């Protein structure tokens, strides 16, 4: 299988898509401690807990003046299992990406076997693949510090496990609406890597979701991705769906 430019672009789309799956909106709250705020944010999005969901997203990626549109479907089981497939365009329909814990696989229907992506290879996939999937800010991170300014809470988070892709994050939450306005993903030494800008919150099948714009801060700064949720359905999945050897073999 040739690692084409298109394939690398797919990875980027997947990362981006899976990044936003873990991010939530929040209800109006009275003064709470930061952990409670985060818990409430997750609860308001309604994707946490014991549920599993099928999410449909529109993804628009920009590089210089070039624009690429795609429709992505994510099968989510808890916060650490995601299967990403493409609905549109036609050329991506046979591509699958699976994240289970810290492991990532990719698959195309013409392959006899899926391909496991190592930690190092994630880097070369043009910003990596799906390590951002299941960013569980509540359970995977400790809140180091919370400050308030200009009507916002700013929370500084540190990953609990050294294997977490983005070791540090900053989350801005509006005080009035308790909605996330921005997240900055950082490296181990604090270097800012990506900005996720949240805007245009609306209800999607009973879940309050934002339109998310993702910008690179370190490399490939001319690239931008915008994600919009179009539908969210509660579904039950057989465990085989998240088995790498079953990728592409089970009708979804």
């Amino acid at each position, binding site marked *: 299988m040739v690692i084409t430019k298109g394939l690398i672009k797919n990875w980027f789309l997947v990362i981006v898509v899976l990044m936003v799956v873990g991010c939530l909106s929040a209800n109006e709250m009275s003064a709470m401690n930061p952990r409670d705020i985060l818990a409430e944010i997750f609860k308001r999005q309604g994707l946490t807990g014991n549920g599993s969901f099928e999410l449909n997203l529109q993804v628009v990626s920009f590089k210089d003046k070039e624009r690429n549109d795609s429709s992505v479907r994510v099968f989510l089981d808890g916060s650490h299992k995601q299967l990403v497939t493409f609905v549109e365009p036609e050329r991506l329909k046979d591509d699958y990406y699976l994240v289970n814990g*810290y492991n990532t696989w990719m698959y195309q229907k013409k392959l006899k076997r899926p391909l496991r992506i*190592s*930690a*190092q290879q*994630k*880097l*070369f996939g043009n910003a*990596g693949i799906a*390590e951002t999937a299941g960013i569980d800010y509540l359970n995977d991170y400790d809140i180091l510090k919370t400050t308030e300014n200009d009507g916002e809470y700013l929370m500084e988070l540190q*990953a609990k*496990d*050294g*294997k*977490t*892709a*983005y*070791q540090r994050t900053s989350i801005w939450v509006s005080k009035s609406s308790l909605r996330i306005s921005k997240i900055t993903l950082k*490296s*181990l*030494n604090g*270097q800012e*890597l990506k900005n996720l800008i949240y805007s245009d919150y609306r209800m999607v099948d009973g879940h309050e979701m934002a339109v998310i714009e993702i910008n690179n801060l*370190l*490399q*490939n*700064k*001319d690239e931008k991705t915008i994600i919009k949720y179009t539908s969210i359905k509660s579904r039950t999945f057989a465990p085989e769906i998240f088995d790498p050897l079953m990728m592409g073999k089970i009708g979804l």
Partner: protein
Amino acid sequence: MLKIAWRNVLRNKRRSLLSLLIISIGVAVLFLVNGYIRATFEGLKYMAVSQYGNLQIAAGNFWDNDNQRHLLSKTDLEKVERLLASRPEVQSYTRVLGVNGIIGTEKNSTVIAGSGIEPGNDQGQNIMITSGINLFPDDIDKVLLGKGVMQKLGVEEGEWVSLMTTTLDGAYNAGSLQVSGSFTAGNSEADNVYINLPVSYAQSLLNTEGVDKVVVGLEEIKDTDSTAVWLREQFSNNGLDLEIKTWFDLAEYYKQVRGLYEIIFHFMAVVIFFLVLTSVLEIMSMAFFERMNEIGTIRSIGTKRHQIFSLLTMEGMITGITGGFIGLLAGYGVGRFINQLHLTYSAPSLSEPAPLSFDLSLANGMFPFVIVVSATLVSAFYPAFKASRLNIVEILRHK
């Protein structure tokens, strides 16, 4: 008999000169080829030692190619360095930690394979600075780029670049480095990918105190094997699960080139052997044929068959040895002349021209000398044998 043989050789000047020409050319050509090959081997050997050091010490399984990262721990590293410091043959040693990632600016980025090294320690660095300056011991966040990397990024000395990698656990990490200069590793493919940075910075990026290996330089290349043996003993005595590889173990390119050149040289030696054999055989056969009456005459006055055989063989030997010496001198002269010209040529996989030189030591001439003289001797055996077996009456009747 030697005197007679000499006189016989000198008697037929044209035939003797022709034989001498063939023999001397054969020896000269083989001498030059052998000299070139040996000079190339020496060059490659020093290149390999410059690149790999005399020895490398790493954790057990480091070279297993099992897709795992096996680092030397800080504790083991300290023990190794104490042992190395106690050995007089050791000239220097350095820690090395590999870093793979993406380096770039907001305009361009490229994939790199970096080495975290100890600035100021040249061990295991076979590079030539092409612009700017090398890393200094006090440098903390400076980087030396392969010249191809520098060109791709379009940066200059003093500019800052970002390096992104993953830690050993798989987390992203990134840092900024100031460009100190550029280098060539003598290989254009390597120049497009390699960078050097301080090992302490590499350790911070990878979030580790370990290193991949220690590269050791010795005072003399010939001490490599004995030092390796001693170190293995010490590691065993100290319960260290470490592996050692010498430059020879690591220098695949050297071994491949050496193997190839040896085959080519031996093939050439065989070809020249048979060329000389058949040419001189033809010449000597003609010469002995024309001397039938002479041989018959000396046989009739009492010379024995074995004396005829010895005489004719000795003539062959004289021709061979004389031609051999002339060939050595000619080869030496031509080789020396070419060496003085300081010619260069483009060798495969090298980004800089390689010098064309010949190792003209006598040892390199011995094998060609022996080969060609042997060919001459063998070519003399058959006609000498035939001539010594001929019946006197038949010889004398031949006119």
